[in-house]
C-alpha cells in the first residue's frame, strides 16, 4: 500500500468515492453478466419480460451436445469456428509479418502504404462487409472478372456454404491484417540497429539475419499477435452477419449464440429467444477459448524462455 498524500480522515475516502462510479458500471454491465452467463446456462430463460425462469440443470448442455440433428449442426459450427481460427490466424500472421518487414524498410512511400493497409481496421464490420459485398458482386463484379481472367468462377457469398465461408475468412483477414502489421512494426522498431550491422559484418545474408536476429528478438510481438489473433478469431462473427447472414453450413459458434438468444434474423424478432440454451453455448465457446488460449500461452512462454533466455 503506497503512501497516500492527500490528507487523512475523511479526505482519505476521496479516491474510493471517485473510483466507485466506474467500477460499479464495470461490475454491473460486464463482470457480473459475464459470470451470470454460467448461471443462465442451467435455466430455460427466454427474452420475454416477466416469463418464468426455471432451473433445468444440464438439459441445455445435453441438448447442445447430444440431441439429434441440432447437435450435429452444433458440432459443425464448432468445427468451423476452429477452421476459421486456424485459417485466419496463420494467414493473417504470415501476411502481417511479411508486410511489416517490407514497410519497415527505407522505401519510397512506405508511410502511405502503412496507412492504407491499416485503414480497414477502423471502418468496422458494417462498412467492411458492404464494401466487400460489392467487390464480390457475382454478375461481373471486379473479383468475378479477375477470376474469369484465369478461367475460374465463383458464386462468392451466395455460393456453396464452404465457398461463402472461405470468402468471409478472406474479408476478415483483409480487415484485420493492419493490426497484426502494426504490432510487428512496433516490435521491429525495438530491435537495435547495431545487431543488423554486426550481422552484416559477419557476412550473414538476409535470410540468416532474419533467422538469427529478427525472428528471435521479435518474440514479444509474435506472442501478442498470436494470442490476439487466436482469441479474436474464435469470437469473431460479425462479418458473417453482414456478408451472408445466418445460413446453415456457414455459422460459427458466436453467431449461433446470438441467433439462439436473440432470434435468427438480424433484429426483427422471429424465432423464440432461447437464452438459456444460448448461454450454454456461450459457456462452450468460453471453454474453447480458455483451453486453446491457455495452451498457446503455455507453449509461447516456454518458447520465450528458450529463445530469449
Amino acid at each position, binding site marked *: 500500500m503506497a503512501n497516500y498524500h492527500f490528507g487523512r480522515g475523511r479526505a482519505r475516502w476521496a479516491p474510493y468515492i471517485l473510483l466507485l462510479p466506474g467500477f460499479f458500471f464495470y461490475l454491473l454491465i460486464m463482470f457480473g453478466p459475464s459470470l451470470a452467463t454460467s448461471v443462465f446456462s442451467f435455466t430455460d430463460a427466454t427474452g420475454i419480460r416477466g416469463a418464468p425462469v426455471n432451473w433445468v440443470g444440464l438439459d441445455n448442455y445435453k441438448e447442445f451436445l447430444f440431441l439429434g440433428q441440432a447437435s450435429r449442426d452444433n458440432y459443425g459450427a464448432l468445427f468451423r469456428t476452429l477452421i476459421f481460427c486456424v485459417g485466419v490466424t496463420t494467414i493473417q500472421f504470415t501476411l502481417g509479418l511479411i508486410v511489416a518487414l517490407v514497410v519497415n524498410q527505407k522505401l519510397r512511400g512506405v508511410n502511405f502504404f502503412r496507412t*492504407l493497409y491499416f485503414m480497414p481496421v477502423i471502418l468496422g464490420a458494417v462498412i467492411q462487409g458492404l464494401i466487400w459485398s460489392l467487390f464480390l458482386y457475382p454478375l461481373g463484379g471486379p473479383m468475378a472478372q479477375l477470376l474469369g481472367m484465369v478461367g475460374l468462377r465463383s458464386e462468392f457469398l451466395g455460393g456453396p456454404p464452404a465457398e461463402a465461408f472461405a470468402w468471409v475468412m478472406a474479408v476478415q483477414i483483409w480487415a484485420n491484417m493492419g493490426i497484426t502489421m502494426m504490432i510487428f512494426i512496433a516490435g521491429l522498431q525495438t530491435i537495435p540497429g547495431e545487431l543488423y550491422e554486426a550481422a552484416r559484418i559477419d557476412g550473414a545474408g538476409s535470410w540468416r539475419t532474419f533467422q538469427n536476429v529478427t525472428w528471435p528478438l521479435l518474440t514479444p510481438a509474435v506472442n501478442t499477435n498470436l494470442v490476439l489473433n487466436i482469441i479474436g478469431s474464435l469470437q469473431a462473427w460479425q462479418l458473417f452477419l453482414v456478408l451472408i447472414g445466418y445460413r446453415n453450413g456457414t455459422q460459427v459458434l458466436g453467431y449461433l449464440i446470438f441467433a439462439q438468444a436473440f432470434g435468427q434474423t438480424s433484429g426483427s424478432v422471429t424465432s423464440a429467444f432461447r437464452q438459456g440454451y444460448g448461454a450454454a453455448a456461450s459457456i462452450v465457446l468460453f471453454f474453447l477459448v480458455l483451453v486453446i488460449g491457455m495452451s498457446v500461452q503455455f507453449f509461447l512462454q516456454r518458447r520465450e524462455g528458450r529463445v530469449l533466455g
Partner: protein
Amino acid sequence: MSAAVTSKSLTKQQATGHINWGRIGSYLILLFFALIYLGPLLMLLSTSLKTMPDFMKNATSLPTTLNFQNYLEAWEKANFPRYLTNTILYTFSATVIYVVTGVFVAFPIARGYVKGAGFLLTLYVIALFLPVALIPQFQLMLSLGLYNNPIGYVMLFLVNPIGIVILVNYFKSLPVELDEAAAMDGCGYLRFVTTVIIPLSSPAIATVAVLHAIGIWNELILPTIYLTNKDYYPITRGMIVFQGVYGSDWPTLAAAVLIMTLPMLIIFLVLQRFIVSGLTAGAVKG
C-alpha cells in the same frame, strides 16, 4: 507508380552494377497489397457514381457520366441525418462518461491509493477471456426497463477494460513526486487529478477515448439487440436496414456506404497516431 519503381531500380542498377532484386520484390509486394486494399474502395466510388442501368450492363466499367444523384437519394432514403445524429450523441456521451470515470478508476489503481489495487487491476485484465456477457446483460436491461431506450443503450458503453489497463500503465510512468509536491501545496485529490494528472496524460487519454469512440461508432450487435424503434437507430443499424431494402440497387447503396465511410476516413487520418498507439500499447514489452 510502376514506372517510378522501374526507373528507381534502374538507377540503382546503373550505380551498383547489379539489379537489387530485394528492392524490386518489396515494391511488388507493396503494390500487390495496395491493389487489394484500394480496389474495393475504388469499386465503391465508381459504383456510387453510376446509374442503375449502367451498373446492370457492366458492373466494373468506369462511370461515363458523374451521377451524383445517388448521394442525394441515399442521404434522404437512408434517413442519414437522423441516424448520424443518434450515433454522434451515443458516441460522444458514452465516451465522455467512460473516460472521466475511467481515469478515476485507473489512477488510484496505478498509485495503490485504494486497498486491493492489484486485485482490481486483475479484474480488468481477465475481462478479455470471460464468457460473452450478452445474455445476462440483456436480462438485466430488460428488468431495469431500459430495453429499447437510448439511455440504456448508452449505459452499455460505459465500460472498456482494455482502456483501463492502458491508462494504468500510463499513470505508472508519471512520477509520484508530483503527488507529493501537489499535496504539500495543499491541493486536494479531486483537484490534483483534474488539474494535474488529466492534462499530463492527454496522449494516453486521447488514445483511450478514440479507441472507445470508434468501437461505439461501429457497433452493430448491440443496437440490433437493444433498439427496435427506428428513431433510435445508430448509423450502423440504419445501414443494414437500408441494405435490406435497397440491397440490389448497388449505386444508391454504394453512395450510402461512402457517406458513412467518409467521416471515419477523415477521423482516421487525423487521429491515426492515437489509434495505432492504442492498438499496439504494451504489445512489444518483453
